[in-house]
């Protein structure tokens, strides 16, 4: 390739690449938004109903790989614990903070999800 060809190929790949990636992901953004809105309109209470159900499954999936979790530094665990707190805690003044603490399914599910996602792979 001569210099001109290089410039041309560069610009085409840059442009096409960014445009396609953005178009695709913007498209997905709107789609996800759309179907989420529809679902929440149809099942307004499903969001709370279903999550506790999922808890044992998430916990179970999480149990068989303790060796990996063993490798997570304490610092990270602290960060995660804090994050869980933050998610519920920032509005803790308004909401029924004690009842949250009583919902073990919910918070342990979130915890498991967090740990799963923060597993180093």
């Amino acid at each position, binding site marked *: 390739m001569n210099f001109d060809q290089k410039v041309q190929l*560069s610009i085409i790949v840059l442009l096409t690449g960014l445009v396609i990636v953005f178009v695709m992901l913007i498209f997905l*953004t709107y789609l996800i938004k759309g179907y989420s809105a529809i679902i929440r309109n149809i099942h307004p209470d499903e969001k709370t109903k279903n999550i506790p159900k999922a808890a044992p499954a998430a916990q179970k999936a999480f149990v068989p790989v303790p060796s990996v979790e063993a490798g997570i530094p304490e610092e990270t665990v602290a960060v995660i614990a*804090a994050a869980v707190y933050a998610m519920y805690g920032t509005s803790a003044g308004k909401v029924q903070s004690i009842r949250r603490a009583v919902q073990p399914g919910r918070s342990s599910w979130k915890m498991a999800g967090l740990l799963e996602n923060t597993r180093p792979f």
Partner: protein
Amino acid sequence: MDIWNEFINSVEGIFKASGFVSNDWRNYVMIAISGILIYLAIKKQFEPLLLLPIAFGMLLVNLYPAIMAAPQTTMQLVSDYQAAHGGATANYAMVTIGNQQYYQIPQVGGLFYYLYQGVKLGIYPPLIFLGIGAMTDFGPLIANPKSFLLGAAAQLGIFTTFIGAIFLGFTGKQAGAIGIIGGADGPTAIFVTSRLAPELLGPIAVAAYSYMALVPIIQPPIMKALTTKKERSIVMEQLRPVSKLERILFPIIVTVIVSLLLPDACPLVGMLMLGNLFRESGVVGRISNTAQNELMNIITIFLGVTVGATATGSVFLSMQTIEIIILGLLAFSFGTAGGVLFGKLMCWTSHGKVNPLIGSAGVSAVPMAARVSQKVGQEENPGNFLLMHAMGPNVSGVIGSAVAAGVLISILG
């Protein structure tokens, strides 16, 4: 002294076949490099699950290159064969060359040659994505779909690095494979490279996994340089909970859209989403567990050692590798910058509701990059917890780089 001479000959033969004679200095340099990588994997815990197998594969192939040897056929005169086997005939194919009959005797290849087929034929990376899908929670992304934009912006590094590679003299295909290092996603990098430029698999895989491990060192300075203290202190709104139905539909919709629009991304995205559907459906716990544990572990071992085994001294020790390592660093840096800058844009359009630090997580490098966003944010405001908000761009970055992979294969493949 006939026996003595024969014995000396025999020992000499073993010595001549030994690595001391056949290996050159490059192999020893590679052995030293693999030692450093083993050190980093064990002592510094740099992505040890892949770096340790990669380093050991590199070690073995430089000690014993035949471990990657392709199977071959050797020719032996039928008369010679029979003389060596007490007159017995064999079941090999025969050829006649110049009135002489030869057996075509197949020789088996090296162990890693066979295990490497899963890389060469593009089988391992989608299967690892199956496992990753089964262990990924896309909830934060569904709760805040705008995260997709950050996962798109952080792919900037891929395309800018492509340009750099082109101007350093790499071919288009090679430049695409080098660019994908910026995707910060191991299986995607290996998948693209095995299709576009298998000759660069060693340095690209090593660069990709090394930089993924170095994300906590590479990203913070860039993130701080591009944001103000005020931006870094932004506390984001709590994410809404996501219903089970939304979680189940997500992988199906993403698969349909991405596969239709960009077929070349289908194997990676499709398998990622199948794994996630296993997870979210809640009815196939057996296979979901196996996909994310045993299947993924087995393939991780095979992928790691054989990818490492592509890094023989004569291939790895070249100017190209140094260029790739520099370009890889640029790729990560530009990706991080792209994510952060787009985060600033979203901060501005949302009137300060988005903390731009979560943008850097869009490079993927799951979950390291999200932890970095959390940590940098907490340095400004110890009560600010960005982790869950950064998980959205983080997992979106996996989809984003798989889409970018599809584009590169489609244009350059």
